[in-house]
């Protein structure tokens, strides 16, 4: 019996040793949930791609409520995960406080800038991508009214809305953009029932193309738009497949690439700010067989032209977060 105990103990020590030696990367998904078909799912896809290519394993955690943020971060850091990637601006303050306590652990945060020596901040120029899909919405709309459904009302989401409104007005200067936010707390990322109601209210106001930048809430918006026979625009992931022939396009934000890169860099993760813009392929519009019949040749030509001009600097898309105002829309 004692021998048995000693053996078991030795195995346990060995097992612990292996865990500490191999630093698995980790990812924490924000409140929308891993399967939101949008922002967090893009992150999940990036992690999966890394796992498939390298054969490595990674840890993952889904947030259930606000109070878990710090606990989740510390728990993963204590467990030796490195690097730790987290999706969502809401981790900003927590990470800023936690990162100095684990100087040997590398962190990457998406959608927020955290100024710490061991943190890589990945931000996207959603205004540019939203401008492109706005341009398409403006051209596709027959009523001259288009809608925008944001998730939680934060400057980042207003940046989506502002870029979108500018694109719409570039295609049709007389167009009307109806802007709505789902809510003011994080539950707004996962409320498809409310998203559907907002889409119905926008349709009643004449909107015939609705852009959802609302995480899991967007699923309800896209569903309601498909039910009503109007067009919708997906966000973050390519959501064209959700309702083939009824989703005009998706504003793709390559969160998957950001996660993939961070995992690939591993413990050598370079700290600092990483701006993923249109030129770097960080944002783009989606074109595949599901939405090909909806995108006319003129539309494609216009959006490609705008894309080239934004990259060359000829078109300047106003970034809401630069001065908290929007020339094209009022929030």
């Amino acid at each position, binding site marked *: 019996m004692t021998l048995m105990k000693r053996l078991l103990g030795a195995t346990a020590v060995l097992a612990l040793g292996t865990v500490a030696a191999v630093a698995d990367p980790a990812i924490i998904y924000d409140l929308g*949930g891993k*399967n939101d078909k949008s922002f967090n799912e893009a992150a999940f896809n990036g992690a999966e791609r890394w796992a498939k290519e390298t054969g490595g394993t990674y840890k993952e955690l889904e947030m259930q409520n606000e109070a878990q943020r710090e606990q989740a971060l510390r728990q993963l850091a204590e467990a030796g995960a490195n690097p730790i990637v987290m999706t969502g601006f809401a981790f900003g303050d927590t990470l800023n406080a936690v990162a100095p306590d684990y100087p040997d652990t590398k962190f990457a945060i998406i959608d927020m800038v955290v100024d710490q020596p061991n943190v890589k901040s990945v931000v996207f120029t959603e205004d540019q991508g939203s401008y492109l899909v706005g341009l398409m919405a403006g051209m596709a709309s027959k009523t001259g009214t288009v809608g925008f459904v944001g998730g939680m009302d934060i400057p980042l989401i207003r940046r989506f809305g502002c870029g979108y409104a500018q694109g719409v007005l570039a295609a049709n200067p007389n167009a009307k953009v109806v802007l709505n936010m789902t809510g003011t707390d994080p539950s707004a990322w996962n409320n498809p029932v*409310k998203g559907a109601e907002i889409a119905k*209210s926008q349709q*009643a*106001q*004449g909107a015939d193309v609705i852009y959802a930048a609302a995480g899991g809430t967007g699923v*309800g918006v896209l*569903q309601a738009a498909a039910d009503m026979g109007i067009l919708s625009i997906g966000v973050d992931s390519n959501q064209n497949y959700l309702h083939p022939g009824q989703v005009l396009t998706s504003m793709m934000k390559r969160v998957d690439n950001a996660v993939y890169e961070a995992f690939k860099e591993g413990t050598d993760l370079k700290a600092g700010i990483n701006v993923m813009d249109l030129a770097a392929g960080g944002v783009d519009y989606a074109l595949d067989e599901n939405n090909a019949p909806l995108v006319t040749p003129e539309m494609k030509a216009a959006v490609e032209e705008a894309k080239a001009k934004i990259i060359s600097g000829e078109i300047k898309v106003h970034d809401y977060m630069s001065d908290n105002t929007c020339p094209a829309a009022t929030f």
Partner: protein
Amino acid sequence: MELASFLQILDSTVRLATPLLFACIAGLYSERSGVFDIGLEGKMLVAAFAAASASYATGNVWIGTAAGIGAALLFAAIHGLASITFRGNQLISGVAINFLASGLTVVLGSTWFKLGGQTPALTDGARFADITLPFARPATESLSGVGFVSGFYSHVISGHSILVYVALLLVPATWWLLYRTRFGLRLRAVGENPAAVDTAGVSVVALRYSAVAITGLLCGLAGAYMSMGLSAGFLREMTAGRGYIALAALIFAKWRPWYALAACMLFGLLDAVAIRFQNIDIGLLVIPVQFTQALPYILTVIILAGFVGKAIPPRAGGEPYVKER
């Protein structure tokens, strides 16, 4: 406010009030029979999950509805067993049901569908379709430029799924059952004075079980409407406190069916207004969106504080019936 917005808000009100109305009437039966039920939320949630799962598996909305009702009945039976047969504390049993539903739906959902507790999106045959009543214009038509009467008929009255009409018919049906039938009289009596009912030779236990079963049935419909009418699939915690709002509406309505309709419509209206208007500009000042979103809860607190007059619950409510001491 122009007519189109007004009609749109009413349209939205009807949809949002429907799950509340089902749950509120469900609670009415249970509480009128003397069994308090704060497990409405949990029963709705488990029904929404069972309905969406069965509907996804079979592609048939009616099988989904039956599964939802079955799951809610099962939970109602647990509540009945705990609070009628074993004379346990009804509030504790209700809380336990809420927790059980909240955990069970996520665990089963994650195991079956591997989507983090949600069900896959339901396709057309697996959801409730909107019904267009005779002479009504299609509900998807834009509201701009319609007259009040035709707009009201086409958009507010017509163009909802069948369960919305079932919920509305439930109100007069409940009134008739409670106040015009022998069963209704006995049901009300057993909630006020079970000893008298027992003396008259009527089984208190059977009456209370049938009331709790009706509660389960209606919670099942509420859940089915949530996951297959209002949205296309189940999401964790998708009932989002509607069971509690329904309880508040029930107290507001003082356990009477017509008032329950009015109370649920009021809560639906507040919800619809908060969705439609982000910031309400009333000339002098702008009402921030946080306020309109909080309004249903503020109202609930005011109501529960007894602002609307004294709400007297059924006298034997919350007390298990003991035949002999």
